[in-house]
């Protein structure tokens, strides 16, 4: 499902990822931990086909990156730092727009809005919603096209416990989808992971216990 071997990514002279190797099978959850600026978001964007790896081998959902990145289009659900939604539109308008991009039936829009508990606020401008509500709509957008792979960057940030419970079947472990989750919640992250990867200054290593994670953040 995901196979990275010695993947490297640079931004000019700065090395953001180097020697990153990991393998994730279908249905597994990989949790990525690490301090700010470690390269976690860069790793997600490489996996989504949005950034080219500059060295190494990367295969995601059978697509060899960067050459076959186009094959990933429509197969990845991304919850990023920014919600990838337009502030001037309502949640319903935003999701209808993404439904058209993904050739998804509009009836699915109402279904996911209901699933994230936003049916009542679906016609309010996004700019008037709280951060947690926007995050719920962002999660709805990510699963609108029922992608087999979820790439989640701090997906639970800004959500209250009720919202976390609501989103669990969609983007949590209960979704049974292959997931890569970037988080700073060490205990929660390890709890939902099949594999855990520590990133520090662009280099990666498996982390299995809290001592290794403490070392990561030192």
């Amino acid at each position, binding site marked *: 499902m995901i196979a990275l071997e010695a993947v490297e990514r640079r931004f000019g002279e700065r090395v953001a990822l180097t020697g990153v190797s990991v393998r994730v099978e279908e249905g597994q959850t990989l949790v990525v931990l690490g301090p700010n600026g470690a390269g976690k978001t860069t790793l997600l964007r490489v996996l989504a086909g*949005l950034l080219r790896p500059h060295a190494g081998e990367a295969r995601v959902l059978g697509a060899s990156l960067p050459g076959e990145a186009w094959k990933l*289009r429509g197969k990845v659900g991304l919850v990023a730092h920014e919600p*990838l939604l337009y502030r*001037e539109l309502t949640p319903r308008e935003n999701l209808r727009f993404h439904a058209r*991009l993904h050739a998804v039936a509009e009836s699915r829009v109402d279904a996911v809005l209901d699933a994230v508990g936003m049916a009542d606020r679906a016609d309010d401008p996004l700019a008037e919603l709280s951060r947690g509500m926007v995050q719920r709509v962002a999660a709805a957008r990510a699963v609108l096209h029922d992608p087999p792979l979820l790439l989640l960057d701090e997906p639970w940030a800004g959500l209250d416990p009720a919202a976390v419970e609501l989103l669990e079947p969609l983007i949590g472990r209960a979704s049974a989808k292959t997931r890569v989750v970037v988080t700073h919640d060490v205990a929660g992250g390890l709890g939902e992971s099949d594999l855990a990867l520590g990133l520090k200054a662009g280099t990666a290593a498996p982390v299995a216990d809290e001592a290794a994670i403490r070392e990561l953040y030192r």
Partner: protein
Amino acid sequence: MIGTAIAILRKDLTIELRTRESVPAMVLFSVTVFVLFHFGLDRDTLEGDLATGVIWVTLLLAALLGINRLYVAERDQGGFTGMRLAPIDTTALWIAKAAALFLYLLALELVALPAFDLLLLEPGLDGALPELLPILLLANLGLAAVGALIAALAIETRARDLIVPLLLLPLLVPVIIASAQATEPLLSAGQSPDDLAKWLGFLALYDVVFVLVSVAVFDFLLDD
């Protein structure tokens, strides 16, 4: 691809109707420039080549305001990322942006031309409108095609406000030459537009070339 382009265009027009960020600024700018010319030239009326120059340069500079803002929502609100994750031909984005700019220019001209007529033009536009319309449509198409391409090229740069005019204005010199040459007889008393067909053909050829170039290269502009 056309269905996707329509969806993006509809989204852009909805956002423009709610924010009123581009078209009102373009209109206000052009009317202000006409007033400045009115006082700067110290003339109550213009005609012929002077009127032609004032109107086309003003429309071109007003268009820059809209072109600079064309992709701001996509960059600031993650639209580029959202579209690159979707199974679409990203050329649809260029088509939508060019179509949006074309409509913004039409809206601009609907207000700016009567304002110019009222403030400065003598003789008036009334008799010239049937010939002026195809010139405007073809010039708008060229402006929209090249503007949507250059704006995409510049949007991820820090100096985009500088890069857009620096790259765009030289590319639009042929549009200005052809539009001005075609318009000048229409704004001059007693002149017939003998060369109109030639200049319209030139504008159409320019449009075809830049539409083809844009379609060929746009996908690469969004790539990492």
